[in-house]
Each structure stands twice: as structure tokens, then as C-alpha cells.
């Protein structure tokens, strides 16, 4: 159902109303006393009658919506209203215009024709009215639905952004607990880094785009914590260009990918883990490539997952594209590529 269907109805509706007006006008014109001042009266009466009956037919038809025999009821109702309209026109308005005592044979002679004209008028008008109502209802429903979808999208984005691993938090706290007795200074540093990291995570949850430099700084906090947790098994090499550092990208994308790479790398091997991050701008797109070692023999453990699905979902919600995050493997290297359009 759409507006174009309503628009299509105006033409036949208008033709029917004008047609019936013309027919009645021509009919009345035969009488000698149908003088020019009567034309105005006739027109007024015609319009009033049309309005009254169309309105009543609309009320009747739109209120009465049985599930079965709908069309039969509609036709019957329209026929009855048409009959009433013609009766009113000829029985009340006719005498009003032409005075009483006139021979009204023409009504009897042409009753069927008049009835048909009126029937068409009413049915087209009422159908148009119902259609218009439905379309209005539909468009307001659609507006509400759009609003709901937008709210859902935002809520989901927010939730996805806010996600940080409780695992990470509790393990870090455990490391701090260990450091307090052994190396208090390091424990303090760790508390500061963890606080900074959590504060940024909470703040970033409300931001949309930040510069790549901001994301790198945030990542560095995370990496420092991980280095304390896993000793010196972790090495991260970051290569960037100046323009990419200033480019705006969606917030909290880089860190989860690197977290994933670390998990993958660390949990798949006990040797030193070297993770590389390479970022550049290519054809107006920020292109970030992250590599981490992995052992082909070590399949992902069920449950640890590869938290990349959440990132894919976020990218889809932001850009409506599913091809922005890709993963491949080359020998013993796992490669994750992230593309994001440069935000203005």
C-alpha cells in the first residue's frame, strides 16, 4: 500500500463526480426555468449532497470491517447510500431549487442512471478514504519502526563497544595481587595502567570516532598490562605513517583485534610472540594489517572463540558492509586486515 495508489484514485473519482455533476446539469438544463441563478443553487446542493453522503459512507464503511463478506457489505452499504443520496437530491433539493409542484417524472425515468452515478461516486470516495487512512497508519508505523531500529542499533553498538573481557580484568587484578608483595613499585604502575585503560574504555564507549593515534595510545596501555601478565613473551611492532595517525577511525576496534591476536598467539604457543601492526591510508581507506604467529596443529579451543564476530557486527552496524574485516593464514602466520573509511 502506498500513496501512488491513492493518487490513482483521484482521477476516476474526479471524473465520476464531475461526470455526475455534468449529467445532472444537462438534465436540469432541459427545463426552461433552469435559469442562471438556479445554477448556483443547483451546484451548491450538489456539492453539499456529495459531501454529506461521502462523509457518511466513509464513516459507515471504515467503521464496518467484517472479515468475511467484506466486499458484499461494502457494495450493499454503498448501494443504500446511493439510493438515499438520489432520493435526497431529487426529493428535497430538487423541490428546493425548482419549487414544489413540478413534475418529477425524470427522476423515475432515470432513476437507475442516477443511482449508478451516485454509487460510483460513493464507492470511489470511500475507498480512497480507507486507503488514505491505511497509508497514513502505515507510514506512521514505519516511522516508529525506523526509530526503534535506530535505537536498537545504537544500543547494540554501545554494548559492543563497552564489551571488555572480565577475564582480562580479573587476571590483571590477580597479577597486581602477586606484585604487591614481591615488587610494590611495579604493582603501583600496573594499577595506574589498568585504571587508565578502564577509564579510557568507559569514555570511548560514548565516542564515535577517534584518531588512530588515540587508538594506538589506548592499545599501548593494554599491551603494557599484558606484558606484565605474560612476562616477556610478548613483542608488538607497530608501523604507521603520519597521515594515518591523524585519520579518524571508529573507536575501540584496534584493541580487541590485537587482544584476539595475542590470545591466538599466546594460547597457541609458548615461545616468544611477535605481533606486528601495520597501518596506512590507501584510496581514502585506513588499512590496518595485524599479524600474529599461530600453530596450525593447535585448533581454537572451544569457548575462547575469536572475538572477531563482535567487531564484524560493529563494522556492519556502522558501515553496512561485511567485508571490512578479513582473516587469512600464511604458513604459521595469522593475518587480520581491517579497513575503515576515513571519517571526515
Amino acid at each position, binding site marked *: 500500500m502506498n500513496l501512488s495508489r491513492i493518487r490513482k484514485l483521484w482521477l476516476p473519482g474526479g471524473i465520476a463526480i464531475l461526470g455526475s455533476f455534468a449529467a445532472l446539469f444537462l438534465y436540469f438544463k432541459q427545463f426552461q426555468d433552469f435559469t442562471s441563478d438556479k445554477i448556483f443553487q443547483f451546484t451548491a446542493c450538489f456539492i453539499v449532497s456529495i459531501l454529506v453522503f461521502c462523509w457518511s459512507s466513509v464513516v459507515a464503511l471504515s467503521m464496518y470491517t467484517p472479515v468475511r463478506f467484506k466486499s458484499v457489505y461494502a457494495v450493499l452499504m454503498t448501494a443504500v447510500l446511493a439510493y438515499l443520496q438520489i432520493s435526497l437530491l431529487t426529493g428535497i433539493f430538487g423541490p428546493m431549487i425548482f419549487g414544489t409542484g413540478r413534475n418529477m417524472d425524470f427522476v423515475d425515468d432515470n432513476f437507475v442512471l442516477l443511482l449508478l452515478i451516485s454509487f460510483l461516486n460513493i464507492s470511489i470516495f470511500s475507498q480512497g478514504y480507507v486507503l488514505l487512512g491505511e497509508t497514513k497508519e502505515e507510514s506512521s508505523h514505519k516511522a516508529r519502526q525506523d526509530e526503534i531500529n535506530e535505537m536498537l542499533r545504537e544500543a547494540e553498538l554501545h554494548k559492543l563497544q563497552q564489551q571488555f573481557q572480565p577475564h582480562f580484568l580479573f587476571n590483571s587484578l590477580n597479577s*597486581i595481587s602477586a606484585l604487591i608483595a614481591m615488587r610494590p613499585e611495579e604493582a603501583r604502575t600496573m594499577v595506574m595502567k589498568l585504571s587508565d585503560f578502564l577509564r579510557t574504555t568507559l569514555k570511548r564507549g560514548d565516542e564515535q570516532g577517534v584518531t588512530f593515534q588515540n587508538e594506538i595510545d589506548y592499545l599501548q596501555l593494554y599491551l603494557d598490562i599484558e606484558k606484565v601478565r605474560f612476562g616477556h613473551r610478548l613483542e608488538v611492532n607497530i608501523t604507521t605513517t603520519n597521515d594515518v595517525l591523524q585519520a579518524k577511525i571508529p573507536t575501540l576496534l584496534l584493541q580487541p583485534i590485537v587482544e584476539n591476536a595475542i590470545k591466538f598467539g599466546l594460547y597457541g*604457543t609458548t615461545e616468544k610472540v611477535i605481533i606486528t601492526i601495520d597501518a596506512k591510508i590507501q584510496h581514502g581507506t585506513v588499512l590496518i594489517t595485524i599479524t600474529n604467529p599461530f600453530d596450525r596443529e593447535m585448533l*581454537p579451543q572451544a569457548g575462547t572463540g575469536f572475538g572477531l564476530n563482535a567487531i564484524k557486527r560493529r563494522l556492519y552496524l556502522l558501515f553496512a558492509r561485511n567485508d571490512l574485516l578479513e582473516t587469512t593464514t600464511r604458513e604459521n602466520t595469522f593475518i587480520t586486515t581491517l579497513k575503515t573509511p576515513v571519517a571526515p
Partner: protein
Amino acid sequence: MIKVILIDDEPLSRELIRSYLNAYKELEVVEECSDGFEGVKAIATHKPDLVFLDIQMPKINGFEMLELIDENPAIIFSTAFDEYAIKAFEKNAIDYLLKPFSKDRLDKAVTKFLDAHAKNTVYNARPAIQELSTSGDTPTRIVVKTGTKVKIIPVHEIQYLQSEDDFVKIVTAEGGYLKNRTMQFYEDHLDKTQFVRVHRSWMVHVNQVTKIDKYGKESHIIILRNGTQVPVSKQGYAKLKEALGI
């Protein structure tokens, strides 16, 4: 001396437990391991009385490691897992420590262990671990041990499973591996669209089936890609037909 092994991928976490354990003169930490493979080896070598075990670890997780050991040491889990996940094996492990944990909390766990050790109570963590390590989703891999080597089998590489006494033989293109589980367990836990139990002691991967022949009046026989002939029971035939969509 009571022998203790610490298995955790985070060095600081091990250091913490070790420092807490210094107060117990009767406990001796004989080895520290940073992953499940090392854990399996260390447990076989030292035959410890008590193991502190992390769950999320490199290579294989704590549950998978427990499946691979022949010894039955008392286990205290130390993990950042949520509490509800731990509840499932609360009865079977000596205790579990949620990271970060206090010295008091660890003392409680160790006291529990020492009491049980004095009374010679045997704690068996395995049944609950079977339940927990496979609860919910279908496993994507199965860990087996061949001699001293640990092998990880991706579930999709399994050709068929056959019961052999108290074991199930898991067969891949590379060979067969025995696993101390029941056919029923695998029927319950493997993907039903991929694996069909065609017989009381046989389960096949549907992709491996090349031919189904009639065999006798009621039963059938399957020829697998590698030529293995597998008997099919009447019930099994119905299940197979359903899985193959014929």
C-alpha cells in the same frame, strides 16, 4: 613431603601461589608449568599429590589436560572464570579459587586438601570435568595422547569411531586413537548432522560413506572411503537415511 605442581600460563599467578604456599612446610612445589602439555609431562614424571590448575591456558585448556593424565592427583582450580561455571565441579575438585584470591581463601582450600589427604579421601575430578568441558556446544576438537605425545584431532577429520572394550577408538586418516569415553558420550556430544551411530559399537562421519549395501535380511553394510566395512543395524539404517536425506 607432599608434592605440588602449579600449572598456569601467567608467571605472576604461579609466583603468588608459590609465595602463599611457603607457609606450608609439608608442601613442596616440585614443578611449575605454563601450559597443559608441560602439565601432562610433569604430572607423569612427578606423580604429584596436589595440582593447582588454571583453566584458560595455551595449547590445551585445563579440562583437556585432565582428560590426558593417567594419574589422579587432587585438583585445586585457580581461574578467573565466573562462579557459576565452577559450580558444576564443585563437588569433585578439592576446591576452586577465583582470581584474584586472598591468602585466607587459599588456606581454606589447602586445609581442605590436607584433611582429605590425611583421611586418604580420593577426589575424582573427571566425571564433572567431562560434563563441564563439553556442556553446551559441540566440541570442535578432541585431545588424545599417543605414547607421550599429545595429539589434537579436529572433529571434522574423524572418519569413524568404534568401541573397543572400555575405550572408543577414534579413527582419522592418520590412524586410530583410543579414548577413555563411551560411544554414548560421543553420540550425545558430536554434531548429529555429521556423525551417525549406525551400530551399537560404530559411529561414522556421513561424508565418509561411499556405498550402502544390503546385508542379510534386515541389516545393511556401509563401505567407507578408505574401504572399511561398517555394519549397520536396523535402527542405525533409519538414522543414516535421515542424516543423508534419503
